[in-house]
C-alpha cells in the first residue's frame, strides 16, 4: 500500500546523471543504474517541481486514452517507488 499524494503536490527529481538510450532513460546514482521505459521517462521528466500530480494524471489519461483512475493508480504508485528510492522528493 502506497502513501497518498495530494493532487496539487509538485514532485521534483533529485540531481542525477541521466542518459537517453534508444527509447530508454538511464539514470545513474551511487553505483546504481535505474532504467526507465518511455512512459516512465515521461513522468520522470515532468517531476521538475512545476507539474502537479493532477496535471500528470490528466496528461496521461488524455494522451493514452486511459481512465483517470487507472492513470492515477499508475502514476502515484510509480512516484511512490521513486520516493522510496530517494530519486524524487515530494
Amino acid at each position, binding site marked *: 500500500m502506497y502513501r497518498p499524494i495530494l493532487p496539487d503536490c509538485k514532485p521534483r527529481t533529485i540531481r542525477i*546523471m541521466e*542518459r537517453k*538510450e534508444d527509447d530508454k532513460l538511464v539514470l545513474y546514482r551511487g*553505483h546504481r543504474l535505474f532504467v526507465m521505459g518511455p512512459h*516512465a521517462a515521461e513522468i520522470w521528466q515532468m517531476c521538475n517541481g512545476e507539474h502537479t500530480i493532477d496535471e500528470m494524471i490528466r496528461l496521461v489519461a488524455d494522451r493514452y486514452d486511459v481512465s483517470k483512475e487507472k492513470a492515477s493508480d499508475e502514476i502515484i504508485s*510509480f512516484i511512490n517507488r521513486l520516493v522510496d528510492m530517494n530519486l524524487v522528493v515530494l
Partner: protein
Amino acid sequence: MDIPKIYIPKSPLVLSLDLTSRCNLNCAHCLADASPNGASIPQDMAISIIDEAKRIGVKELVLGGGEVLLYNNFFDICKYIVSKDLEFAFTTNGTLVSHNIDRFIELRKHTKSFKVGISLDGHTPELHGYFRPKDTFEPIINAIELLSSININPHVICVLNRENIKQIPEILNFLSDLKITNIRLIPFMPVGRGTRYKCEMLSAKEFHTILKQKNIWMEKSGVNIAIHMPWEFLFQPPKDRCPTPCEAGYVRLWIDFKGDILPCAYLTDSIIGNIYRDKIEDIWINSPILNELRDSTMLKGACSTCEFREGCRGGCRGLAQFLKGDYLCTDPYCPIVNQEQ
C-alpha cells in the same frame, strides 16, 4: 512503468582516467606505483579521450594519478572537460593544493559542480603516516582549510589499515571539526606497491565490524560515510536490501597513464585494450573480459548458486583476482562466502 534492475548501458557512464603516474610522494601502498619519475598521458591524447568520451555519451570523468596536480596543464584539461559539458572529479594527495590555489579559484569560476577528493588516513600525523609520509599531514589539513575557504568542500578518501580502523570515530570527529561532510573508506588493496603488504589486508571480520558500525558513526559525527561493497546490502534489514553491483563493465571503465584500458583499477592484469589503437565504445561492447564480468552465470564458488548474484554480481572482482587468481571467483570479504568457510 517497470524499473528493471539489470541493464548494461551502451557505453560507460563514468570514465576514470589516470593522467599520470608522477607523484611527489612515495607512499608504501600506492596502487599506481607512482613516483617522481612517472610517465603521463600526452595532453593531446587526454583531449582526444575527452572528445571520445563526450561522443559516446560518458557523463562523468574521474581524473586520477599519480598526483594530478603534477600533470602539465591539469587545470586546462579540467576547463576543457567543462567546455564539453561533462561532469568531473579528481583526487589529490593534497600537498600541492596551496601552490595551486589560484588555479582552483579560477576553475571554480568556470564550474561549481566538480568534486575533489583528498587522501587522508588519520587524524594525527602518526596515524595518517601508516602508509604515507607523516610530514604530509599538516599540508593536507592546510589544503582542506584552503579549499573550504574558497567554497570547495573536498571529500576525504581514507584507506583503511590495521591502525586507523581502531580510531574511526576519532577520525570522523576530527573531520567534522574541519567541516568535512563526506568520507570514503576504502579497505587496503594489495595492488601496485601494495602487493608487498598483502598481510596488511583487513580480515573479513574487521571489515564487517566497520560496516555494522557505519550508521551509528555517521549519526554521531554528522559525516557521511561511503564504503562501496556490492554485498554491503546484507547488513541492512531484509526490506531495505538493495544490491549495488561492482561497476566494472557495468557503469565504468578505466584508462591508465599508459593508455591501457582496464575494467577496474584493481584488475591491473586484465588489460582489455589500449587507447592508442582501440575505440572505447568497441572495447565496451566487445571485450570478452567485460562480457564475462557482466554474465553472473559465469561466477564460481558460492556465487554460482547465490540468490543475490544477479544484483551483486559477485562483489569486488579485484579482490577475487588478488586472492584467488580468478576474477570470476568469490569476493573473500562477502559475508555469505565467509559463512561457508
